[in-house]
């Protein structure tokens, strides 16, 4: 039944540190069509009272992905590898963010994933992996809590 590795339920990945970069944030902002210069230009961000370029609201997913890439470079499995995700039948089901504070270029944040469980809706035609990603800053504490449902189409 299913493809996900159910033995990973409850698994918490080791924290991975990611440093946010100005150019990467600006590239993301431009790509999604964001025109507010606080996401694109350090001078504009500082003029608006921010310490540096402000990460857009959905940049949390990117920080999580970058953490996975860094883990993979250190020969640790990224999240999809850990849970045995199959890209041929994988869909993104749900994504949710609780925001506790902003993220800026230059911030170094810690990223941890927890596999909170699995479910089998639609009579087993779908299976869903439920994952929580916590992004925290050493001084400022929790920044974003992200929860995600990753679907395999089985039927």
């Amino acid at each position, binding site marked *: 039944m299913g493809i996900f590795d159910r033995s990973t339920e409850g698994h918490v990945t080791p924290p991975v540190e990611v440093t946010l970069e100005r150019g990467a944030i600006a*590239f993301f902002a431009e790509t999604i*069509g*964001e025109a507010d210069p606080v996401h694109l230009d350090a001078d504009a961000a500082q003029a608006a009272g921010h310490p540096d370029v402000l990460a857009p609201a959905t940049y949390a997913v*990117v920080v999580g992905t970058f953490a996975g890439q860094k883990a993979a470079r250190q020969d640790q499995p990224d999240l999809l590898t850990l849970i045995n995700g199959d890209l041929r039948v994988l869909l993104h089901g749900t994504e949710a963010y609780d*925001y506790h504070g902003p993220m800026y270029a230059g911030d170094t944040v810690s990223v941890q994933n927890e596999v909170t469980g699995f479910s089998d809706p639609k009579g087993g035609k779908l299976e869903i992996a439920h994952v929580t990603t916590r992004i925290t800053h050493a001084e400022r504490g929790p920044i974003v809590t992200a929860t995600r449902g990753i679907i395999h189409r089985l039927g």
Partner: protein
Amino acid sequence: MTITPQNAQIGDMIPDHKFGPVTRKSLALYAGASGDHNPIHIDLDFAKKAGMDDVFAHGMLSMAQLGRLVTNFAGQANVRHLDTRFTALTPVGAIVDCTGEVTDRREEDGETLLTLKLAAHIDDGTQTLKGEAIIAV
């Protein structure tokens, strides 16, 4: 009258936001910018082998538009929560129309919070995202 967080009442629609049309270039750039290199979104050969007729957009590219809808309205510092369910695939060529309706306005711990019901529809009428945001006024 322009709807703002200050004057918004239950039932009001916030100013909508459109993105697109989604092109293959948009998906290639989103793959690079987001780090999500899943080939189903950028490699037609892979998509066909997986049984799809074509590549389709990253769901998160559309959620990013819901993010823009909400931050344009409320200011990013006031956004407390943003969530979505991806209810249908977004094909290449789609224009994504994001809308938000005020469904609650309440006082909590000395501040005013609004709940917004969010939706994204593509130009053939299909709803692709169904979500919610909570913002502080």
